[in-house]
């Protein structure tokens, strides 16, 4: 990170010097948790950044810093960006939540946008996508396709966003296949190809023939490909280079429209703090093409699920659903409210194992 950081700050310093002469473009900063070439999460955020550049051309100037560790390092990087004149800063990982809030308090005139978090301020908005809707589609395919009835799930950190995804995938896999069982491994990283590959291999060795991942690299896809007879789903990005097998579909994050709209709002002076949480319907969550390795009827069921989620006729968390300990959570026909979903910290009934503390 140090080197990239250094080069970016050099570029930013240079940009600052010239900005004073030209008529001040809107400066938008992005803080990334992984490298822009991860092929997943960070890659898609950077596609969003490029879309902003393409949309506004000279009127906007973007900077980014990649591989920023969550924690104190992040606070330093965000502060540096704010000091160097950014008007709008997107911090694109859950762990940047407190650093973003801290820095925002010091720079009331800079607008911040934090992805996947739940803390807001007058100059901090939050935004996220309803990935769990995509997980529902994945769960449908996974439940239908598994022959061993074991689905492996690589979790990153035990935070609500990840737990929501596990629950949603499990509920919908169970719906089409009552015998399905989830094996969950926590990698405690967003991006570490070696660890992710190891986790995928272990799950495959323990009988999983479907691997779902909530980490950012393509390493689990490569591991599944090497093992053969295992299917995977692209995470955050299409990961189409691993299709048609093992990758049979994917969840694609599309941040571009949001980034463009928010940058426009800053230019117009209409920016206001808030919370945006869009799903398949609004296009923030895309479902990558379902490959021909999936039987036609399964594909049809998955697409029907996608359509129902998109037009709002079905909610991925619709009762009856019990919590893991057997206590009732949602009654028949009841749907989960956003507040509970945002802070979800429990497994639904049927999932084995404990969430690490």
């Amino acid at each position: 990170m140090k080197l990239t950081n250094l080069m970016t700050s050099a570029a930013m310093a240079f940009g600052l010097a010239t900005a004073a002469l030209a008529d001040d473009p809107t400066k938008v900063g992005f803080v990334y948790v992984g490298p822009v070439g991860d092929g997943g999460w960070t890659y898609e955020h950077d596609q969003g950044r490029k879309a902003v550049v393409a949309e506004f051309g000279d009127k906007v100037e973007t900077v980014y810093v990649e591989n920023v560790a969550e924690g104190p390092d992040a606070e330093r990087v965000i502060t540096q960006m704010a000091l160097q004149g950014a008007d709008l800063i997107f911090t694109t990982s859950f762990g940047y939540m407190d650093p973003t809030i801290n820095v925002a308090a010091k720079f009331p005139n800079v607008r911040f946008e934090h992805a996947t978090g739940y803390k807001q301020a007058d100059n901090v908005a939050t935004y996220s996508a309803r990935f769990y809707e995509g997980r529902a589609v994945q769960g449908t395919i996974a439940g239908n396709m598994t022959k061993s009835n074991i689905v492996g799930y690589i979790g990153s950190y035990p935070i609500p966003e990840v737990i929501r995804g596990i629950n949603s995938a499990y509920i919908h896999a169970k719906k089409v296949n009552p015998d399905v069982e989830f094996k969950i491994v926590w990698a405690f990283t967003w991006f570490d190809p070696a660890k992710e590959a190891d986790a995928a291999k272990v799950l495959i060795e323990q009988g999983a023939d479907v691997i779902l991942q909530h980490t950012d690299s393509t390493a689990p896809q490569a591991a599944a490909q090497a093992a053969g007879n295992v299917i995977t789903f692209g995470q955050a990005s299409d990961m189409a280079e691993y299709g048609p097998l093992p990758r049979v579909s994917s969840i694609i994050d599309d941040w571009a429209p949001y980034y463009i709209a928010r940058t426009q709002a800053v230019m117009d002076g209409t920016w206001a703090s808030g919370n945006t949480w869009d799903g398949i319907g609004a296009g923030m969550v895309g479902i990558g093409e379902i490959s021909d390795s999936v039987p036609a009827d399964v594909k049809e069921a998955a697409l029907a699920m996608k359509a129902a989620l998109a037009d709002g006729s079905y909610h991925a968390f619709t009762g009856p659903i019990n919590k893991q300990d057997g206590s009732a959570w949602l009654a028949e026909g009841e749907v989960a409210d956003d507040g509970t979903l945002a802070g979800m910290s429990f497994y639904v009934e049927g999932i084995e194992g404990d969430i690490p503390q």
Partner: protein
Amino acid sequence: MDLSAINPILLVASLMVAATPLLFAAIGELVVEKSGVLNLGVEGMMIIGAVAGFATAVESGSPMLGFVAAAGAGAGLSVLFAVLTQYAQANQVASGLSLTLFGLGLSALMGQSYVGIKPPQMQKLDIPVLSDLPVVGPILFGHDLMLYVALGVITAVWAVIKFSRIGLVLRAVGENHDAAHALGYKVVRIRIMAIMFGGACAGLGGAYISLIRVPQWTEGMTAGIGWIALALVVFASWKPWRVLLGAYLFGGVTVVQLNLQAAGVAIPVEYLAMSPYLITILVLVILSADKSSAPAALGRNFHAAR
């Protein structure tokens, strides 16, 4: 909890794969230390090997060529260390540490355009009949070529050190360089060759991670394996066979931890992550009673005029 889900055969097989980078790096460092040089730059040489091997394999389409390049790159970087410590008489600890930092930075720079790219795949060895044997087949005969190369290197190093004249000279240089010099051996030349061998092995270990184990390139992907290799040499008390044992023990920790997690046993990750170092500290304490196992001239610079 369902321990029956863990398949012991596959566990051993994947443990061997996980331990191979460690084997390469540790056996190289063992030879270096046997010659009386302490090179703390293992991590740096590994990561340079990882990126050089990856880049070469992607550009040429041949993983084997990648491994050759990785060995070359590791050895190349170690020459820097050799020049610093053998000719310029620089402090070995400081030079080694700077080699690690330099390697990490340089590899990040070299690898910029290789992030997220898929390398050509290395075929697994498929020996008819033998690979299909139950139990023994997947454990012993179902791996890629480089894993066997690693085992071969261990055997070769053991044989050379124990039985050959070269091994005797190497040990003499490491135990007492003044005496070796008086006998007419070229201490500096022998040490440089040992350092380069260590660099080549570390490079191979790095490339094994980026080309086979993961396979992908990312900044800092060796993630401390070089340091574990250093600890491993001490743990093995400078004996090649114990390196093999220790590598399987240390390398197995990660694999076992993930297996336990998938089987529903929750052991905090942190305990297993620190266990190699804990074991090493323990062994160091035990070894402190018996100093004979470390090469006597380890870490001491040699100059003919002194």
